[in-house]
């Protein structure tokens, strides 16, 4: 009796795993398909660039405050922690290098992408999900207007444009935060702070690679948010779940992609 119950439990568990994997793969494929359709219908949306500009406003400009404030604090914390450790080795003027490299190479793109997923990504998912639930997308289809070209593609490109800009601003403001902490507060020499930074931060290998990362994150985060919204069941519960999934999936995707990109960039 117990044995058979165990067996049934095991089979049920395996079935659950199988179901989840199939669903996951199916969703991944559907996401790629949406990505492809979006790219295919991007021509029209570039001809009507004001659609993209409008979405850049909603994803980029509206995320500016949260990005800048977080960047400032992240920069100051980096400065504080860096100083605390570096002064043990008598090299506290290297604080500028530490703050700049950490921000430009990793924290700028990654933290921006995570914040973006939370701020703009969820907004996109909820908006698209609600448009679907209230039949706005259907209505568009019936008006012979492709929702992918009119709704999805502009938001996609807006995200891809906004993300690197936000990441660059994040790095810049973070470095300013580090500077404000290191130079006036702690008393590190301003000249040493900047010169060490300039000697060790490489334009192409550090700054440009960071920008490339944030472009990739922009593609991933925006596409995930759009797909979750487009794929959401047209109910209040479905949309709220999709919004949660956007944050979870985007965060995992950003961190995973970051590892892959970093390992490629350090090798080359």
């Amino acid at each position, binding site marked *: 009796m117990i044995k058979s119950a165990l067996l049934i439990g095991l089979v049920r568990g395996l079935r659950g795993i199988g179901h989840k994997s199939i669903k996951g793969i199916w969703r991944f494929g559907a996401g790629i398909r949406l990505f492809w359709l979006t790219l295919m219908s991007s021509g029209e949306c570039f001809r009507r660039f004001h659609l993209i500009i409008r979405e850049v406003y909603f994803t980029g400009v509206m995320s500016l405050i949260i990005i800048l404030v977080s960047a400032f604090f992240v920069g100051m914390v980096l400065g504080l922690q860096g100083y605390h450790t570096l002064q043990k080795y008598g090299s506290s003027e290297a604080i500028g290098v530490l703050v700049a490299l950490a921000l430009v190479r990793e924290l700028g793109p990654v933290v921006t992408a995570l914040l973006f997923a939370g701020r703009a990504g969820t907004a996109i998912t909820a908006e698209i999900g609600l448009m679907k639930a209230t039949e706005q997308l259907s209505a568009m289809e*019936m008006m012979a207007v492709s929702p992918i070209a009119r709704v999805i593609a502009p938001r996609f490109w807006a995200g891809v444009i906004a993300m690197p800009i936000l990441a660059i601003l994040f790095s810049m403001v973070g470095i300013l935060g580090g500077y404000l902490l290191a130079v006036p507060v702690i008393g590190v020499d301003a000249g040493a702070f900047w010169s060490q930074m300039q000697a060790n931060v490489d334009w192409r290998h550090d700054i440009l690679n960071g920008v490339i990362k944030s472009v990739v994150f922009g593609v991933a985060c925006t596409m995930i948010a759009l797909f979750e919204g487009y794929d959401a069941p047209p109910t209040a519960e479905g949309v709220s779940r999709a919004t949660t999934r956007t944050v979870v999936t985007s965060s995992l995707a950003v961190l995973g992609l970051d590892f892959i990109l970093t390992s490629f960039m350090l090798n080359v």
Partner: protein
Amino acid sequence: MTSNIVEIDNLSFGYKGRMLHQGINMAFARGKVVAIMGGSGSGKTTLLRLIGGQIKPSKGEVRVDGQVVHKQDRQGIYKLRRKMGMLFQHGALFTDLSVFENVAFPMREHTDLPESMIRDLVLLKLNAVGLRGAYKLMPAELSGGMARRVAIARAIALDPNIIMYDEPFAGLDPISMGVVCDLIRTLNDALGATSIIVTHDVEETFRFADYIYFVANGVVAAEGTPEQLRNSDLPFVHQFVFGEKDGPVPFHYAAGDYASEMLGYEA
């Protein structure tokens, strides 16, 4: 050119083994207001989607203006849809656009008209539904009846040949209902279009429709002019028209024997 603008021929459709429609035949004559009636869940709205080419039939075909809808490619379907206007159940206004922009949307997408002409046309359409004064409002600021009327203005923005209404009366107060009802009739006659109305609101429909189809159990159960149907002795039509609780459409969902289930016997 036939006199029917939309023809549905032996149409079957269903999801995953459950057939919603099993061989439906309908014809919609030009210039008429035709209603499709039936109980909830009888696949009325799905019929509109089939006409609009949003889904493909399992069997049979829908012809719009002589062209088979599901055999068109994307371009072809979009071309057909430009002849159609559709009012969705809850209006489906674009919530991020103002009333003016909602009505202007189809014009901006499909025409290259100058801004001044778009403005004139939009105000014309809004005037037709009596909401010219509300053009600045956002959809969230409208009442249900007003939203429905704006959606009608949007549906007729490009002067379609076919106007489809999905439950145009659902959730409206009697006054709004009367307004929408009159609008459907007057717009139909003014535009020379054909109106297809999906509804289960008997009284209003019988007042203004030219022809009515009853859909039940996946087939056309009855059809005719309001006059013919009112005098029909078909039990189903009688039940529906007079709103009787029990009849050919049972009150109870198919279930086992009540007494035995209550007494705890395994069915």
